[in-house]
């Protein structure tokens, strides 16, 4: 009786519910391609076969299927029912293995739901078996791995107890990847890639050098985090790639400190940020102010005086903010106020 009920359990209903066979409709049974442990799995498990006339699980019953006789054995209940809550999971899944629904005591459903229904359950669910799972890498399992590896590790230096100290003493980070696979060869061509990361603030660069370096490296510099990333893989060995990346860093540093002759031809389009001095804006502002002064018959006002005046400084800051930071409501209103003061407009 219990066995029968158990088998009915697997027939698409929630696990753990015991149902009397009387409640079962043939339709329910026909929907469930139960995966029996033995026997009938070898034959097709087309649901229609185990349909209405299908065998209710009878221990040791004999069924005629085609010309051969078949013994139908009842299926044992899944292992999940006998699992304790505080069991050692890393012994259930010690290594990477496929998903076994009878070994995983979780009510997982996966797949596209039937219309008006729910996703299919885990029993016989090919989707769950196909995907990779990390049931073998639970935190307790990882702890055990770490404990096993501890004997091979050296201690972390106690003086480096914060991120800032690490950055201060070791500004350059080298990243390499080792690959392990089951196969005849331990070599992997991807293992030669070396990534070097360094923050530009830890390098000794002045304004010109920093701008030149950023222009030289191009895409490899991230503005938000101020990190330069150099990835090298052109040499066949990891050590060679590491040497090359260090060489690149050295060359970049020294080259950015040098000033070539042609750098004086840097034009407005090349500038990284807006510079107000010698710009159209400055010219326009000065011209306007000079005309205003001329109309008021105030002469001998020099450009330097005008540039040093408060209104012009205010205007300069607002234009720089507008150009560098883009246009926001506050920027535009600040610009408006500064222009009103500059041109002496009263409402």
């Amino acid at each position, binding site marked *: 009786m219990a066995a029968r009920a158990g088998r009915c359990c697997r027939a698409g209903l929630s696990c753990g519910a015991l149902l009397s066979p009387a409640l079962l409709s043939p339709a329910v049974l026909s929907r469930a391609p139960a995966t029996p442990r033995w026997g009938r799995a070898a034959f097709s498990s087309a649901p229609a076969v185990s349909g209405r006339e299908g065998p209710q699980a009878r221990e040791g019953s004999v069924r005629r299927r085609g010309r051969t006789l078949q013994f139908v054995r009842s299926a044992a209940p899944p292992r999940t029912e006998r699992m304790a809550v505080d069991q050692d999971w890393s012994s259930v899944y010690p290594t990477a293995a496929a998903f076994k629904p009878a070994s995983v005591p979780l009510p997982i459903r996966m797949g596209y739901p039937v219309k008006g229904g729910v996703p299919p359950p885990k029993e016989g669910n090919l989707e769950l078996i196909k995907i990779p799972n990390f049931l073998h890498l639970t935190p307790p399992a990882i702890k055990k791995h770490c404990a096993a590896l501890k004997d091979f590790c050296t201690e972390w230096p106690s003086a480096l107890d914060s991120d800032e100290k690490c950055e201060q003493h070791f500004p350059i980070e080298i990243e390499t990847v080792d690959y392990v696979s089951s196969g005849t060869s331990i070599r992997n061509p991807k293992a030669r890639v070396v990534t070097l990361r360094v923050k530009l603030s830890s390098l000794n660069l002045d304004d010109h050098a920093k701008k030149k370096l950023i222009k030289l490296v191009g895409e490899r510099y991230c503005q938000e985090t101020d990190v330069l990333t150099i990835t090298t893989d052109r040499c066949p060995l990891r050590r060679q790639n590491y040497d090359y990346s260090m060489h690149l860093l050295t060359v970049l540093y020294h080259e950015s400190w040098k000033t070539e002759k042609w750098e004086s031809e840097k034009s407005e389009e090349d500038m990284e940020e807006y510079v107000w001095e010698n*710009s*159209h*804006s400055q010219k*326009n*502002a000065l*011209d*306007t102010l000079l*005309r*205003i002064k001329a*109309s*008021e018959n105030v002469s001998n006002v020099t450009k330097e005086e005008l540039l040093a005046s408060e209104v012009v400084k205010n*205007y300069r800051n607002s*234009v720089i903010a*507008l*150009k560098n930071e*883009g*246009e926001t*409501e506050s920027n*535009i209103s600040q*610009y*408006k106020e500064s*222009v*009103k003061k*500059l*041109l*002496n*407009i*009263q*409402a």
Partner: protein
Amino acid sequence: VQDRHSDNSHLALQAKHTEQHEGRLYNIPLEELSAVFPHGLPHRFQQQVLTFNEARVMVRKPALELLAYLKGSNFSHPAVRYVIYGERGTGKTMTLCHVVHYCSRQGWLVLHIPDAHLWVKNCKELLQSSYNKDRLDQPLQASVWLKNFKASNERFLQEIKTQKKYMWGKRECTEEGRPLREVVEQGLARVRSASDAVGVLLRELKQQSHRGSFRLLVAVDGVNALWGRSTLRKEDKSPVCPEELTLVHNLRKMLMNDWSGGAIVTTLSQTGSLFKPSSAYTPQELLGKEGFDALDPFVPIPVPNYSPKEFESCYGYYLERRWLQHEKGQGWGGKRGMRVLGLELVSSKWAKKLDKLNTDFCTHRDAQSFAVPSVSLQGPRTFPPCASGLISSVCPCTPRVST
């Protein structure tokens, strides 16, 4: 509702619009409208004028701000540039028109370019300029503009005299000291030289404005067209830069602040602009680097959507004019036995749908077949009396021109 829409035109005459009038609509008499605005009013507003047989302009904060600046400006200083900007359909052109109306009431000379975008696209004829071989003339656009300019500024054209002798081609010339009207008529008569006539006109006005005999208002709608790109092509299919067009070149010179005795009020416009994304509305986005550098330093004037007070005012106006009808309001139920539509605000999309019910009576059943969306605060342009054919479809008995 009543006092909101009372005829405040006398206040406009005395230029006494102040903050207390914010949200109210003032009337412009129709004869004055055609005199001051031969061109330049937005299309929707023109249709509204036709429908209601009156021109009501709402007094809004940006316009009041601009008027305050203009009133307080020093005309011996170089002309200040004002740039009206805002998102689509918020009322930039109407603000400009309000300012133009104010200035013309005050007796200024108004140089109103209704849409600078029209000068950089869809130009059928491009002639090589006789004055400068590298530039291109646009006779049609120039002559249309000259005609409208003449219609609005007759008085000034008679009074202002030329200061130089101008040769039009080999034989014709305009002597020094002749009224500017002759220059304009020369441009209208000889369409080939219309662009040069415009250039001469602008030059003369610029040079003479500082004397103080007249005040000059340069009003340009869609000023970002002057520094953008154009879709025009020369005969060898190479693209035309805007500065190669005579009209654009001369207008750019006009917008510099090297003259005094007036003001320059401009509008940025994305609708009608070329190669600009539809979400662009801020000055730098639309003007570009070149335009910004040319207009800098300018006073940017933002125009927002309707505030709640303005919204109520506009809604009340349409109710009063019986454009929008309310079930509970003064209904039209009576005579024809029609059921009245109880409508929330229609956006123009739904209004166009309703327009399709052309000659049928719009019964309650029909109205219910449209799910009319309820509306949060909308801007001026979602009130399109023109697009909503409500009046014609609901009440064919309503005369189009109300008395």
